């Protein structure tokens, strides 16, 4: 399986779409936005450079986990690569486990690069415990998005998985307040935003950089989403790989 993970990582790192959308965009947006609003502080006195760091890292991580699962998986099912694997001794559970591990590993470049950019260009500094909590939470917190990507890739053809994944990714990023702050949303949209996995995910980070513990509500929301999407993903995956 390590070998399988290796080639999955390799192929995504050679994929221009992954590099541009998932690694390039969040980094470029961070550099742009933080140069505009990095010095401004929000109502709690937290600087824009910090908030934007979490937002862009969250966006990159969310995009990475969905992009590395949905479309490649739909393509593999359709193109016969899955079939090729099914006639080797590779156990079928290891395919889905590999997809999940790969997706988690592919989240790291954008997460780390955005944080690094924040430290280097904006002089962002956090206490050790904040980094120690922020990075793992923002990393593991992508599990519901990877599950959503697997659902899309299991149920749709490659052609329709592409736009659907894109819409989900951007939709979740917008409503979760990753691309525009939740504060500017209307009260109705805001109340919807609070139950999305993307908002809860980023909100944990925003709290951490403000020096407070993530609210229980966020943790609970993301766990519920992880459980629900994870269960659906298992069913969708089984349906997609069933041998008639």
């Amino acid at each position, binding site marked *: 399986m390590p070998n399988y993970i290796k*080639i999955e990582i390799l192929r995504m790192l050679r994929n221009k779409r992954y590099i541009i959308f998932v690694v390039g965009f969040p980094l470029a947006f961070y550099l742009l936005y933080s140069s505009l609003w990095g010095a401004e502080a929000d109502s709690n006195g937290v600087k824009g450079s910090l908030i934007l760091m979490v937002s862009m890292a969250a966006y990159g991580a969310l995009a990475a986990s969905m992009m590395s699962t949905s479309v490649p998986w739909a393509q593999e099912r359709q*193109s*016969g690569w899955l*079939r*090729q694997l*099914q006639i080797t*001794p*590779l156990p079928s559970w290891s395919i889905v486990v590999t997809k999940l591990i790969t997706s988690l590993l592919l989240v790291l470049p954008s997460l780390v690069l955005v944080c690094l950019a924040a430290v280097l260009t904006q002089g962002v500094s956090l206490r050790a415990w904040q980094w120690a909590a922020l990075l793992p939470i923002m990393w593991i917190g992508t599990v519901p998005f990877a599950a959503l990507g697997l659902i899309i890739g299991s149920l749709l053809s490659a052609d329709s998985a592409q736009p659907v994944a894109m819409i989900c990714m951007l939709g979740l990023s917008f409503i979760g307040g990753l691309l525009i702050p939740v504060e500017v949303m209307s009260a109705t949209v805001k109340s919807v935003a609070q139950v999305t996995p993307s908002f809860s995910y980023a909100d944990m980070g925003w709290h951490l950089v403000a020096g407070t513990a993530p609210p229980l509500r966020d943790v609970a929301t993301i766990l519920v989403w992880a459980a629900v999407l994870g269960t659906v993903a298992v069913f969708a995956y089984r349906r997609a790989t069933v*041998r*008639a």
Partner: protein
Amino acid sequence: MKAIAFTDVSKSYGNVLAVDGLDLAVEAGQTVALLGPNGAGKSTSINMLLGLLRPTRGRIEILGRLPEEAVSRGEIGAMTQSGELIPELTVGELVDFVRRLYPSPLGLDEILKTADLTDLVRRRAAKLSGGQAQRVRFALAIAGAPKLLVLDEPTAAMDVESRLRFWAGMRDYAAGGRTVLFATHYLEEADEHSDRVIVISGGRIVADGTAAQIKAGAGGHTVRFVLDGQSSTGLDALPGVSAVEISAGTATLRTADPDATVAALYRGTSLEVRELRITGADLEDAFLALTREP
């Protein structure tokens, strides 16, 4: 123990019976061609053999085990009909990845050499021609040194050059005492590259034997000549002749013994025989005769 054993295997999709009571046994070490027109049930049979489909009825054993078990033990390698590669990976990476999935694979260099890919090892799959990609898929099929190699229309996307190299590779692989089963609708391929030809049509076996036996079974040779206006009476009584057709002034005799037929044609009749042609029955005639819709 048989390499492949089908016992009364049927597969239906809804009301359509794709495979109908197939009984089949293949000894280890044989190279078998599964020949049949499109829709004959070749791919369905192969997908059941690989454990990708389950039979509606009957039992399949590969080397004494269920197909899924044989697959998970790495005893089967296969090229199914469509199967794209991962475009971002190189030939070497793909082959090495797949070979490492097997318990006792062939060496990487040996695989590349057999599939004639040594020069393409660093090329990405996205940049391969159709024939080259097929050769990579062949390499993936043999990578694990499977005892049973199954190829479903392996030369479909290949040009003549690739085809020649492919069959040379296949023969190298089979020479190690391994069992090979390949499906094709190219008659020459079945004729040239197999020890045994199984013809299936409508989900059933309609002929099974060496290519020579199948040709003989379908009426042997044909003797043709220009008859023009002469009488055809008595042609069907010539030695060996099983059928006579007259069309556009040409007589076509099907015969099991062309020498005797021709000798009798000259000595025993007063016909003026012009433009005599004798053709060995090719497998194509046999095939058409066998798979003709009733």
